[in-house]
């Protein structure tokens, strides 16, 4: 086993995976990665299951150091500069960090969350099958909170004799965030639903993993702003009394009592979550059949990622780093020591 020391970290950086399922009925939300595509790319690059626990990076820089062995990392999601041994490293391509080396990952450019996966995984104990940090619920592993400077994660050792792995960057999708109207679109007039889609909303500074507040000309309720509370899906857009929409995301509550005009489709959830504070976001309603076809396309794309990985010749370590690294160690699975 190796150790990844968090030398410097900003807010909103935490261990996340696909999320926690099984206790929605008790009010325990799923949380999980804000951008599922970033989660999958980073994990597949280091040979992990696409939904495995990794480090979700908030928008600010992070510096990490390998201890007690060499670790292999890969970064995907929002674009950032990576600097190691004075060199710039590529995103969507794995690299090794030898024992004693530090890597600097700079602030996100044009996005919010990036995903840093580790070969062999992160050691910890799941609750309802998940390591995902749910700050308000006090759950998550190995820490039930976002990461802080000085934290140490026990991680797998790098298989240093194997080549680095690369994936073509995910295609950049532009245009409005697609959504399915409902479940309470009948609480709004046709004009208001048109206004909702015509407006370029601005992501408010009081936004977090729970949800994004959207600023713009307020929407009006045709009936009432109070409904009897019901269930909330990931990507729900609810309209409270102020008329300013709330886009509810990974760490959302499981139920709510404001009318929900629409829900972002699964395929666009990551893209919506990657819209930074102060940037514009626009929505477009599509039929549910189209949304479900796109969800199936996304699942197929993620399932096919391992076949698209290109293995590069030789590891990325220098010979000095190889000597310094733990060559005697072999790859272990941090999640299952028996492997």
């Amino acid at each position: 086993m190796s150790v990844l020391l968090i030398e410097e970290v900003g807010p909103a950086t935490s261990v996340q995976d696909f999320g926690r399922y099984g206790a929605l009925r008790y009010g325990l939300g799923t949380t999980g990665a804000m951008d599922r595509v970033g989660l999958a790319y980073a994990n597949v690059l280091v040979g992990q299951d696409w939904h495995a626990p990794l480090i979700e990076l908030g928008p600010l820089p992070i510096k990490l150091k390998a201890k007690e062995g060499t670790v292999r990392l890969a970064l995907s999601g929002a674009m950032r500069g990576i600097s190691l041994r004075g060199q710039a490293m590529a995103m969507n391509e794995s690299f090794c960090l030898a024992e004693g080396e530090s890597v600097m990952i700079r602030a996100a450019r044009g996005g919010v969350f990036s995903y840093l996966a580790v070969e062999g995984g992160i050691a910890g104990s799941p609750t309802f099958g998940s390591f995902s940090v749910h700050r308000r619920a006090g759950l998550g592993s190995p820490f039930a909170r976002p990461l802080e400077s000085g934290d140490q994660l026990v991680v797998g050792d790098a298989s240093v004799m194997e080549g680095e792995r690369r994936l073509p960057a995910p295609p950049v999708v532009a245009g409005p965030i697609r959504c399915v109207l409902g479940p309470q679109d009948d609480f709004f007039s046709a004009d208001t639903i048109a206004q909702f889609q015509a407006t370029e909303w601005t992501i408010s500074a009081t936004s977090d993993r729970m949800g994004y507040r959207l600023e713009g000309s307020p929407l009006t309720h045709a009936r009432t702003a109070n409904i009897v509370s019901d269930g909330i899906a990931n990507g729900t857009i609810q309209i409270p009394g102020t008329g300013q929409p709330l886009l509810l995301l990974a760490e959302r509550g499981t139920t709510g009592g404001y009318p929900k005009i629409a829900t972002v489709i699964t395929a666009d959830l990551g893209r919506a979550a990657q819209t930074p504070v102060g940037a514009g976001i626009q929505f477009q309603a599509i039929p549910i059949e189209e949304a479900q076809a796109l969800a199936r396309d996304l699942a197929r794309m993620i399932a096919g990622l391992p076949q698209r990985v290109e293995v590069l010749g030789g590891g990325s370590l220098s010979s000095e780093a190889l000597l310094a690294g733990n060559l005697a160690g072999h790859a272990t699975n941090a999640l299952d020591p028996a492997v």
Partner: protein
Amino acid sequence: MSSSAALRILPCGDAALTVEFGETVDPFLNALVLGLDDALKAHDVPGLQETIPTYRSLFVTYDPVVTDFASISGLLRELAQQAGPKPQSPRRWRVPVVYGEDFGIDLEDVAKGKGLTPDEVVRRHCGSDYRVYMLGFMPGFAYLGGLDQTIATSRRDEPRLVTPAGAVMIGGVQAGIQCIEAPSGWHILGRTPMRSYHPTRQQMFLIEPGDSLSFYAMPRADWRMMEEAAEAGEWIADLVIDAGVAA
């Protein structure tokens, strides 16, 4: 069943839906929700993942890779028409509350809004027999029906970003007990040391949908002791099994 005539199945995006039995807080509608929830445990519905029973609807998550909205809606509609209301649960909770002042920052305003004294609001809040309609929003948050309508108060237009753990609140015609610190648009009448959710307690969740519940005022002086006991894993609230109600 005639009550299912009003049943609506509403999409919540492409991977969830709501089976809506009505639009009001009504114990019969909630019993229908819990009846369908039980039926889903006994039937194999392809693609079905999880359910959240709520006041008057059942929220269902499903995998759109395995099924689609039309197929799963058809199955759920059939099962909802077969399943009857779930019988009254024999489980009854008694929950202690410190009301008012810094424990219930909205008690004075709610009282003023209704032309009542704060003590009278407390008396009416303690005087009701509540049904736990659902658990939701945040872990262990109990949504209660049965609030005395003379103290019902519409939610705040602008939700507060932080409200404390254990807050005992009212919002619209609903009442609730919050378990962990969270944002909320509801009015806070008091706080209970009980934790219906405790991440490291052997019984992580205490309250089930369909349970009955009532409040009583506890002395402010006992708060610290009770809160420490709750933190250590004690239930604090009493659970009584009502022998008069068939299980």
